[in-house]
């Protein structure tokens, strides 16, 4: 009657077992349970956050809780937007994340291209030193990094509360350089030589031969670069207290807000990255496996 459960490759449970009447029933039950449980666990809190903003503070702390807002009101959302200064927080975060992304793309791509194709002397030593920094736990270096941006060596600039303090350290991302270099290594040298015989210099070759071929890896690096700045906490907390990121700003304002305004604010703060994820989820999934499996 019902179609056999389709299977591509063989996994833990054999297709034969799965397609016996008993097997199929068990499969349905497990699938159904998993779907319900994981929807409740992962979407449930988000649902509570989204609907919580429509409730009054009294309704939010009521026992038993209400599943659907009784008298939905958007008041908490406008209030949260104003009290958090959400517009400013959002703008700050976009500037930090966008600039960091741009600088990472320029400098990490240039470095990876140089290490992969131009191969300067000491290139391997430099690559080794970059990769070794992946072993350093970020939080352990926060103190000397903080003192460094307070008074930059040689030039004696104070970067505190400027976007540079977020932008520049993100360029020192060994994982980006590694991913990009590995990708560039897979581009055949003959292609580059053809370009150089046609009279293209290294910059021209990078721009019109290498980069067009590297779109997938550039997408991966970009998305993770954006998200990393967006989610960072300790570093923006100590370096840009006067121009906070969304993540830090929400925490600063949290203590002084009524419950429903806070919940509404959390929801507003979550929208940008959730939207980004839903739009780019395919690239993000691909990036996760590309980055970690062979890395």
């Amino acid at each position, binding site marked *: 009657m019902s179609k056999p459960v389709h299977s591509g490759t063989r996994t833990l449970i054999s297709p034969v077992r799965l397609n016996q009447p008993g097997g199929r029933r068990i499969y349905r039950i497990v699938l159904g349970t998993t779907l319900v449980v994981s929807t409740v666990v992962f979407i449930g809190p988000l649902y509570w956050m989204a609907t919580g903003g429509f409730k009054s503070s009294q309704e939010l702390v009521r026992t038993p809780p209400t599943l659907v807002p009784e008298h939905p009101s958007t008041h908490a959302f406008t209030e949260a937007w104003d009290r958090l200064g959400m517009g400013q927080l959002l703008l700050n975060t976009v500037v930090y994340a966008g600039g960091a992304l741009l600088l990472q793309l320029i400098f990490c791509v240039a470095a990876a291209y140089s290490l992969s194709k131009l191969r300067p002397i000491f290139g391997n030593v430099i690559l080794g030193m970059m990769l070794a920094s992946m072993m350093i736990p970020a939080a352990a270096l926060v*103190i000397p990094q903080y*003192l460094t941006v307070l008074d930059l060596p040689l030039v004696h600039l104070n970067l505190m509360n400027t976007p540079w303090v977020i932008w520049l350290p993100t360029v020192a991302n060994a994982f980006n350089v590694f991913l990009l270099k590995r990708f560039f290594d897979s581009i055949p040298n003959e292609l580059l030589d053809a370009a150089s015989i046609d009279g293209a210099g290294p910059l021209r070759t990078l721009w019109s031969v290498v980069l067009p071929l590297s779109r997938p890896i550039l997408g991966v690096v970009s998305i993770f670069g954006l998200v990393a700045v967006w989610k960072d906490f300790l570093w923006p907390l100590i370096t840009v207290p006067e121009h906070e990121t969304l993540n830090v700003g929400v925490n600063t304002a949290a203590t002084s807000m009524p419950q429903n305004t806070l919940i509404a604010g959390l929801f507003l703060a979550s929208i940008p990255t959730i939207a980004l994820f839903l739009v780019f989820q395919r690239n993000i*999934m691909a990036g996760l496996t590309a980055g970690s499996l062979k890395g």
Partner: protein
Amino acid sequence: MTTTLTRGRPGAEEARTRAPQAGGHLRRALARNLRAHAFLIGALLCFALFTWYPMVREIVMSFQKVRYGETHWVGLDNFRQIFADPEFWPAWRNTLEFTGIALFFGFVAPFVTAIVINEFRHAQSYLRILVYLPVMLPPVAGILLFKYFMDPGYGLFNQILEFLHLPTSSWLASQDTAMFSLVIVSTWANMGSATLVYLAALQSIPGELYEAAELDGAGLLRRVWHVTVPQTRLILSLMLMLQVVATMQMFTESFVLTGGGPQGSTTTVVYMLYNYAFNFDKFNTAAALGVVLLLVLGAFSALYLWLERRGGEE
């Protein structure tokens, strides 16, 4: 020497035949290297300023103290001070407790979830998006949301427990359950990435291995143990190491949810480091603690690499 300079660049070989004089050749190699380093310089400066120099500076700082604006060498004083701090050992115990519980959940849960999802012929991409959604939230948003759920009075969690006639918990308010509550938040927010990585690893296991195991009469659990685990061993151990290093640096959850309390029961090593520097203005003491953290995690990474290499040779 020259062969290493021009290795892998047939174009440069041609250039050399066109310029017969040795001087021209040297100049070319020099120009080529300068150009290559010009491409490197931006990233190189950033690495130098924000990774390599701070690394050296942290070690130097940890042996110094600043009094009235003057820097003195004080030997191991900073280290003596942190070891004598009554919060030092509790902070390590708290950190290890978090790491331990977080591994038990954060390591097992994604692996089991991935194995289950991988068996499904339906809804795989829906489940994938589902587990990864929390990863994309700004961490503070997820954390504060759970603070609301974990309120001992009106919080959703206790109301659900009451509804099911189960004992309720005081969650973040009690020393005994605070750390455990932080693990719940952290696992919910972070397990998505590990799950997707395992899922990709599971999909590369050849089906014949399961068939062979089944012919040999291996049941479900034995197939997991004798096929799935060994086939994903590399990625499992890599993720284990990354998770240990990440959870040992836990700070945000404590800072936002509990402020290190109650009674210091969630003060982690990084939290202590933050307090030294930004609440007590003792940057050199904080640097010494940073060095200790570096050494501990460095030793752990080295142990991992050594075990991995030995495993590879067998």
